[in-house]
């Protein structure tokens, strides 16, 4: 009998109780009917960061909050907002952090500038060295 229960436990999954009480938002998992709008929404969702699971985009995450964010993106796109307007709406609330696509700003420009600078310095060093040899 005990062996039977152990066997049962190994073959049947016991999912933990759902984290919250509400069903997913209507457009969390439902695509928009208009294919062009859905494509725009999908492209945008891949560039927005899930705030609960910060290393995923909201398109990749199954967190309830990511679902609610997808819902917002889809209904706003369906209502005629441009992807940039939806992105700006979120950045207005969460700052650049919500953008999963790197943006150049007052705080992030060194990330873009330093590699360029290093390549330039390396190039100069090489140039000097080769000239000396020649």
């Amino acid at each position: 009998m005990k062996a039977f229960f152990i066997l049962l436990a190994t073959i049947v999954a016991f999912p933990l109780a759902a984290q919250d009480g509400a069903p997913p938002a209507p457009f969390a998992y439902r695509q928009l009917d208009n294919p062009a709008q859905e494509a725009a929404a999908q492209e945008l969702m891949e560039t927005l960061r899930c705030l609960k699971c910060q290393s995923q985009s909201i398109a990749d995450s199954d967190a309830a909050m990511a679902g609610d964010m997808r819902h917002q993106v889809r209904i706003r796109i369906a209502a005629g907002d441009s992807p940039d307007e939806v992105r700006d709406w979120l950045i207005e609330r969460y700052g650049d952090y919500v953008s999963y696509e790197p943006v150049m700003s007052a705080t992030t420009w060194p990330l873009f500038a330093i590699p360029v600078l290093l390549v330039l310095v390396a190039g100069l060093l090489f140039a000097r060295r080769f000239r000396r040899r020649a």
Partner: protein
Amino acid sequence: MSWRLWLPFMVFFGFLGLAAYQLSQPKDDEIRSAMVGKELPYFTLPPASLDLPGVDSRYFADGKPKLLNIWASWCLPCIAEAPQLEQLKEEGAEIVGVAIRDKPTDVMRFLSQHGNPYTRIGRDDLSEVQLGIGSSGVPETFVIDGNGIITYQHIGDIRPENVPVLLEELRKAGQ
């Protein structure tokens, strides 16, 4: 040998040291709301329980500063902050709740078990208010001044040491 030869090594070990230091620091994954200092966006939420009314954003513009507590009955840290909310209420703070993705039966069970510090609780099934005010988790507590402007954000559960801070922020918002 020129000292300059050592320069690349020093840069390299400097970088290593910096990386080691950063690794030893606790991860800061709090996302502060960019809405602090701005007006509460318009919203209207139905009641989350049978006993208390829902929440309308216009309710915050009645001249009296209030706390807006984002919480949920399924959220464990919300149980931990319940005594502190009770204390804030006793000190005269008005606390308006927004229940995220919650069911009325669960909300009422939570309130009967852990006490009810709220005057109103709105039901936010789509996290609309949460996204609207730039909150990224439960629980979070916002101070809203009498004109409906967000003046302060507290991220995470309210610990006993945070109570005076919130009372002070409420007082400042009332000036």
